[in-house]
């Protein structure tokens, strides 16, 4: 099974893959820390978060695979798509960076996933609603954990403040993709599958601003370019991530693991 699969054009499939791939790819980046963290407790905490996100990804990919034109399972979707068919926002695939970058991204992602999962609990798709009910509890912990680190580093030493502010600066251009609207997004809202992402912005703003204030960090300015990972236009990092992630499935066609 090394030939690529296509998830198809159905709006609900694409909507679920956007969220599922976000979790999958972010989990991948976080997992790169395991064994390399600044303190052992973080190897465990980041491992936990990576595991939770992986679980969320598996549930959503499974569901998306059931709703497509031809049924696909979680592994076909995770391992056998071409890059242009992965739909995560670009931010999730950026290299892990330093510890400040990782915690800043985790915070941005958690502040986005929390209202998203919260609303998905009311999804018209009962499966998705059930997945969301579990995920929302997990992401609440992720948000809290990342917020603690952003505050600690933002209001820590001169070096940590600089690193955390730099991390925010690097990440900010990728934020607006998390709230951008398009036909897929509109269809999900119309059908009740899930919220339009733009509707998550006020909650995200409030949560972020609270943490940034406590961390005494400046909120970076918004930038005009809107990345389009959700339509499969990724950064150059994605291909490298996928060549790693897909290697075994591609190299051992027909393998059973």
């Amino acid at each position: 099974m090394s030939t690529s699969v296509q998830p198809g054009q159905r709006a609900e499939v694409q909507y679920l893959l956007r969220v599922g791939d976000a979790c999958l790819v972010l989990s991948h980046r976080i997992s790169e820390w395991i064994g390399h963290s600044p303190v052992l407790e973080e190897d465990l905490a980041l491992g936990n978060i990576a595991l939770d996100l992986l679980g969320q990804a598996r549930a959503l990919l499974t569901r998306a695979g059931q709703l497509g034109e031809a049924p696909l399972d979680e592994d076909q979707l995770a391992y056998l798509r071409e890059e242009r068919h992965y739909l995560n926002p670009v931010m999730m695939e950026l290299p892990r960076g330093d510890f400040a970058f990782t915690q800043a991204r985790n915070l941005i992602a958690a502040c986005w996933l929390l209202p998203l999962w919260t609303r998905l609990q009311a999804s018209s798709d009962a499966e998705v609603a059930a997945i969301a009910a579990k995920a929302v509890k997990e992401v609440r912990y992720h948000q809290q954990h990342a917020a603690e680190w952003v505050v600690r580093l933002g209001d820590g030493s001169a070096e940590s403040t600089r690193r955390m502010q730099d991390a925010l600066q690097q990440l900010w251009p990728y934020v607006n993709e998390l709230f951008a609207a398009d036909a897929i997004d509109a269809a999900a809202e119309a059908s009740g599958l899930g919220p339009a992402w733009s509707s998550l912005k006020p909650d995200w703003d409030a949560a972020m601003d609270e943490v940034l204030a406590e961390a005494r960090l400046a909120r970076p300015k918004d930038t005009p370019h809107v990345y389009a990972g959700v339509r499969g236009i990724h950064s150059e990092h994605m291909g490298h991530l996928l060549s790693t992630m897909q290697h075994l499935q591609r190299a051992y066609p027909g393998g059973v693991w």
Partner: protein
Amino acid sequence: QQRNEAFEARIDAGDFIEAKDWMPEHYRKTLVRQISQHAHSEIVGMLPEGNWITRAPTLKRKAILLAKVQDEGGHGLYLYSAAETLGTSRDQMLDALHSGKAKYSSIFNYPTLTWADIGVIGWLVDGAAIMNQVPLCRCSYGPYARAMIRICREESFHQRQGYESLLVMMREGTAAQKAMVQDAVNRWWWPSLMMFGPADKDSPNSEQSMRWGIKRLTNDELRQKFVDATVPQAELLGVTLPDPDLKWNAQREQHDFGAIDWEEFWRVVGGNGPCNTERLGTRVKAWDDGAWVREAALAHARKRATEAQAA
């Protein structure tokens, strides 16, 4: 002297010694060395398996591997905590690791070259570790014994998961996958046997360690038990073990097996295995790269404490 007699009496009675109890200096030192070495093994052991997290072949296997490596970090944490009850800080122990003074299990100085290595490590390496560690659940030092109970339970779970993943590949996999499993077994078998330490003749049992329940069987006895337990598992799996001299000895009712390459054993223990430099280098780099984080956390705590006082 009186305290020492009381201590010995408690040991003889099978009582647990607790952190607040008086204990002889030698007992304390032996335990710190052994527990910290075990803790170091857990965190260095995260590296060879961690090497495959981003390449796990299915999401289920990825979740299992992530959880396993995370458990190893957890074991490291309990063990450092157990050792800390004896008055040595985690930072002191890590310093000893990073400077090369402290040891960790030599098995982690071998590389993980294919995905099958992950299953084989679960089966053979965790299997050997359990064989070594189960007796420690009854060790005389309470915090260590309690940590070992939890660790052994989790290790058994890992071992079963590793073996199960190999079974799937051997029973349902492609020819290439089966060859991959066999190759991994070939590479890990002898290093696994070396995990029980030098032959008894080169490792006079410390009577002390026996008394304290830190050791209950000799290296060679444990190694024999491991071989006897593993051979039928290999048969069930459908792999051969890379030892032409391995065969059942009906007289001894045990397996005979070939000579271990002790030269290799001592070379790897002595720092010249295939990955010694890299493993230690990776740990030191993670620690050094994280220095600013740890300093920032302290700086933050001080700041907030000062502000709380001022308020």
